């Protein structure tokens, strides 16, 4: 296990380097440069800014300085929000993303898992067909269609839940965004769960268990569930990554001050440091989440724990 972990971490470093380099290149190859301000700066101010941010150094020197800053966790200043650093925006936005992301994943796992199990145990019935239909619908309808519809129904017509915003301490504001984000993943997980449970239930060891006199429920929970969960767990890595980037739309529609929204406004306003900083962070998060998913996969399947 330790060797596996070490091996994976070793792959993580070149990946981060690639992402950071890509980000740096974008920062410096853009037309107009990073200091397109909407103020008419006098030449002396421009020069002092250039000196302060080391823009007058040769490119390779700037690159290594950039990597050094990155290693120390300094992502630079934001250009659209004066007097704010990228780190501050991330400190502001990351908790939002994590909360919504975690809630969505929880919802998707529970609802999708339950749906999949239900469909698998009643294979071929009306319930199964309904569940499958709902699942394929969930995958096909984009988030930016379901989110406004949810707002229309639950906030504007029924007045059950707020239409958006982030108010700390209020759970009602978390419901609609999390559910909207979770829907496609619920569908994916339901499909995977159904397929893997059917697979697991048709294995010989299940027949053995039933022959021993175990009730169907016990058979399901004690024997079929663990192998059935494995494809779901291996899906979690890409799912979590998708949730991260999918939250960009959710934040837009619900007006949440998360990293995704800062990223989009940064991209549109040419706030390069914000954009590259958040991209690097996304990359690091995706690597971390994939690692976590792989680890849980290894934990679930004892066969993988032995060194390869």
């Amino acid at each position, binding site marked *: 296990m330790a060797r596996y972990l070490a091996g994976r971490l070793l792959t993580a470093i070149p990946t981060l380097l690639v992402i950071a380099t890509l980000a740096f290149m974008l920062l410096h190859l853009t037309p107009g440069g990073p200091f397109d301000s909407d103020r008419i700066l006098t030449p002396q101010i421009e020069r002092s800014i250039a000196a302060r941010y080391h823009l007058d150094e040769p490119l390779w020197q700037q690159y290594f300085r950039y990597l050094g800053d990155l290693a120390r966790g300094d992502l630079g200043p934001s250009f659209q929000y004066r007097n704010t650093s990228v780190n501050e925006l991330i400190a502001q936005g990351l908790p939002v993303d994590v909360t919504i992301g975690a809630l969505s994943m929880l919802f998707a796992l529970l609802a999708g898992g339950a749906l999949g199990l239900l469909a698998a145990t009643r294979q071929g019935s009306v319930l199964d067909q309904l569940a499958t239909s709902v699942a394929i619908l969930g*995958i096909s309808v984009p988030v930016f269609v379901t989110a406004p519809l949810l707002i229309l129904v639950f906030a*504007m017509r029924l007045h059950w839940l707020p239409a958006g915003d982030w108010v700390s301490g209020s759970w009602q504001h978390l419901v609609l965004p999390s559910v909207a984000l979770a829907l496609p993943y619920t569908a994916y997980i339901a499909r995977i769960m159904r397929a893997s449970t059917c697979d697991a239930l048709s294995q010989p060891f299940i027949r053995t268990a039933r022959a021993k006199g175990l009730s169907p429920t016990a058979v399901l929970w004690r024997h079929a569930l663990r192998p059935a969960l494995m494809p779901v767990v291996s899906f979690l890595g890409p799912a979590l990554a998708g949730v991260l980037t999918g939250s960009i739309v959710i934040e837009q529609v619900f007006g949440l001050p998360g990293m995704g929204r800062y990223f989009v406004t940064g991209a549109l306003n*040419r706030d390069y440091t914000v954009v590259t900083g958040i991209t690097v962070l996304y990359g690091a998060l995706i690597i971390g989440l994939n690692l976590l998913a792989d680890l849980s996969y290894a934990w679930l399947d004892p066969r993988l724990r032995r060194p390869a």
Partner: protein
Amino acid sequence: MNGAAAAVSPGGSAWRAAWRQLRARRSALLALGVLAAIALAALLVPCFSPYDYATPVWTRIFTPPTLQAGRIFGTDALGRDLLVRVMWGCRISLLVGVAASLVSVVIGVLWGATAGYLGGRVDGLLMRTVDVLYCVPFIPLVIVLEVLFGRNFLLVFVAIGTVSWLDLARIVRGQTLSIRAQDYIAAAQALGVRPATMIRRHVVPNLIGLVMVYATLTVPSVILFEALLSFLGLGVQAPLASLGSLVADGAGEMQANPYLLVIPAAFLAAIILCFNRLGDALRDAFESHRG
């Protein structure tokens, strides 16, 4: 005929077998039919409709769907016919979907086949690269590229295509490895055929079935991505509209004129749904065929 032998013969019988399997699944056939109908409509309706997708008609702003004057889907905020605009939107979504998938298929197949066939260090290098690229957050990068280098429509195809080839490369590599183990490959090698020719003439045709499946499954995610870009305001420029930008506009009119959201959303969902269904059925067909 066992599974291994079936994979040996060139694509032909794989196609026919797949088609037979497909025909047996009514829903997949229906999906194909719906897609064909939408594509046909998207192609023909704008040519035959008296209305233009770009010309505003001041006196007909926000007319709901009606049978009068052929305004089946109604008009939008500038009085432009929604039917024609939705058809154009379908054109663009289908075009981007197919074109970008093509790009991703080409890259993925070449990459995976080369890695699987050559093996050894080349394989290791190519697949490590895939692992590394897997973790790069492409959606943000594409958004940034879009913003920085202008709303060049060609860029959209290419960018989306380069995002989607990774899974395909992995799968193709796996399949190539199993093909490579076949006897006739060893025979050809003994005869001195060059690796490039081997890949081109023996490996690739046997991959076609697999590629078809995954290409069909890539299209919906590509269309979704393009719709997402348009929704964020980064896709096509006005007055052209893609289904994503039509949905974005419609979302703003959700209360007053819901048909502006519902109709493009329904078309977008239908296209994605049909491709998903088709891809699923193809995959089932190939897997059950292989046994």
